[in-house]
C-alpha cells in the first residue's frame, strides 16, 4: 500500500451479543466520513461484518485490524478459536456448524464465508485446527 494509510484496531469481545457487529459498524462510519463511495463501503462493511460475526460465534472473539489507504481497504480478522477443518466445505453456501442457540439469534445461515468472498476483491484465509483463523480481505477503492 502506498501513500497515506489509516490504521484501526478493534477487539472483538464475544461476551456480549449486543456488541456483535460493533467493529464493522464503526468502520463503516469512518469510511463514510472519508467520503468513500457507498458501494465500496457496503462491500467492505458486509465482508468485515461477516468475518467479525464468525470470530464472535465460532471462535469466542478475536481482533480486527483495518488499514484504509487511498487505493484499498485491507481488513484482517484474527482469532485463536478452533480453526476450520475443511475450508472448501465451509466456503459452500448454506454450510454451517452453528449451534441451535446461535441460530435462534438469527446467525448461522451459512452465508458468511460466501459473502466475504463475494464482497471482497481478495480473500485470504489462514486456518489451523486448534490454533485459530485469520481472514484477510481486500476491497479496492476506486473512484465513482
Amino acid at each position, binding site marked *: 500500500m502506498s501513500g497515506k494509510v489509516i490504521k484501526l484496531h478493534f477487539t472483538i469481545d464475544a461476551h456480549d451479543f449486543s456488541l456483535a*457487529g460493533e467493529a464493522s459498524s464503526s468502520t*463503516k462510519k469512518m469510511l463514510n466520513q472519508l467520503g468513500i463511495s457507498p458501494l465500496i463501503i457496503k462491500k467492505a462493511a458486509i465482508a468485515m461484518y461477516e468475518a467479525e460475526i464468525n470470530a464472535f460465534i465460532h471462535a469466542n472473539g478475536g481482533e480486527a485490524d483495518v488499514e484504509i489507504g*487511498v487505493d484499498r481497504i485491507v481488513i484482517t480478522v484474527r482469532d485463536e478459536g478452533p480453526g476450520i477443518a475443511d475450508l472448501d466445505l465451509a466456503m459452500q453456501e448454506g454450510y454451517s456448524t452453528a449451534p441451535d442457540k446461535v441460530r435462534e439469534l438469527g446467525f448461522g445461515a451459512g452465508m458468511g464465508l460466501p459473502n466475504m468472498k463475494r464482497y471482497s476483491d481478495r480473500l485470504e484465509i489462514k486456518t489451523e485446527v486448534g490454533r485459530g483463523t485469520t481472514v484477510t480481505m481486500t476491497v479496492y477503492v476506486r473512484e465513482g
Partner: protein
Amino acid sequence: MEKYYHSVTLNEEKCRGCTNCIKRCPTEAIRVRKSKARIIDERCIDCGECIRICPYHAKNAITDPVEAIYKFRYTIAIPAPSLYGQYKTVFSRNRILNAFKPMGFDRVYEVARAAEIVSEATRKLLKKENIKKPLISSACPAVVRLIQVRFPSLIDNVVKLESPMEVAAKIAKNKAAHEENIPLEEIGVFFISPCAAKATSVKVPYGAAKSNVDGVISIKDIYLKLLNSMERNPVREDLEQACQEGIRWANPSGESSALGTEKFLAVDGIHNVITILEEIENDRLEDIDFVEALACTGGCLGGPLTVENAYVAKNRLGRHIEEARLKGISKSRNEKIEDDLVWTGSIEHKPVMKLDTDLVKAMKKLEALELINDGLPGLDCGACGAPSCRALAEDIVRGNANETDCIFKLREKVRDLAAQMVELEAKMPPVMDKSGDSQEQVKKQR
C-alpha cells in the same frame, strides 16, 4: 430555495440551552452554542425527535397558518388519515371531513384514498422482476432523508412512487380544475399534516420537480378550529372516499398489510429504523420483500404535529377502520393514475458526514479526530454542546469547536496553567527578587 431546506426550527426565546435535543438527534445535527441549540441544516432530516423531546417546547416546524388558504380562489383540504384519530369517536370520519367546508375550504379529498392507489401500484411493483429487494417504502420522508445521509447504499431499494399526499394533491387539483373550470394556479391544495418532514417534502420534493401541494397546515394548528366547526355545523354530504385499506396507513404496518404478502417488516421509531437499515445494509434481513419504516414511534399517529397521544389515537383510528370495513366503500373509482406515480426526479446521496472532499485530507482529518477523541474523557456528557465526545472531536477537526469546550479539558488546562504560574512565580527575575540571597540560604539550611 436554500441549498438545504428543512422545516424544524428553533424558538430562541424558549430555548434554555439544555442538552436534551442534542442527545436524541439521530443524525447528530444539533449543537448547543452560547446557550442556544443550533441545527446543522444539511444534517436535519426533519424526523421531529427534537420537537417531541424539548421540555420547553422550543422546537417547532415551519408550516402554513390556516389563513394561508385565503390566498387562493379555490381551496382543497387533503387531510392525512392520522387526523381521524385526533378526535373523540363521537365524531365520525364523515363529520370531520364535512367540517372543512364551513372553514373556507371548497373541497376535501382524503389522502387515505390516494394511499389505496399507491398500495395498488406497490403491489404491482413487488411482482416485477429485477427489483432490488427488500423494497423500502418512501412514504415517510424522514426515512428517505435518513437513507440519503446515512444509508446511501440503500437508495436503490427505495420505492420510487409518489407518496399518497402527492397523489391526493394531483388527483384533487386536476379534478377540481376540470369540474369547476378553474386554472390550476388558482387552486390551493392544503395538506393537513401530522408531520414536519412532509412539510419539507412539499418545499423540496425529491420525487418530482414541483409538489402539487400548495401549503401544509399542521394538525396542531387546525385542531381547535376544526373541532369548533364540527360542533357548529351539521353533516351535509357524504365525503368519505377511502376504505379501511387507506385509513390504516396512519398505523405502523398499515401500508404493509395492504400488499398481500407476509414477507414484510414494519418498523417505527427513528432509532429502531436505524437498526433495521443497518441490518439491511449488512444483508441480514432474510426473506423480506418489503420494509415499511416510519420515523415516528406509533407511525404518523405519533407525528410531531399531532395533538392526541399516539396510543389513544391508535385506538380511535381502529374504530374508524372498523367502521370503514363494515361500510366497505367501493374502490371502483376512476382515479387510477398509476403510470404517473413513478417519480420523475431521483434521490441522491447527500454525503454530509464527509470530512473533506479530498480523500487524503479527509484521512488526515480522521486521524486527527481519532487522536483528539482518545484524549477526551469519553463520558459523552454533552456539556460541550456536542452529543458525544467523538462528535466534539469531529467539530474540532472541522474547525467548529475547540478542545477547551470540553470542561474536563478546560480544567486540565487551568490546572496546567496554574502549575506553570506557580513555577513562573518562583522564577522572579533577580532584580525584583526582594528576598535576596540570605533567605535562600535560610531555606537551604533547614
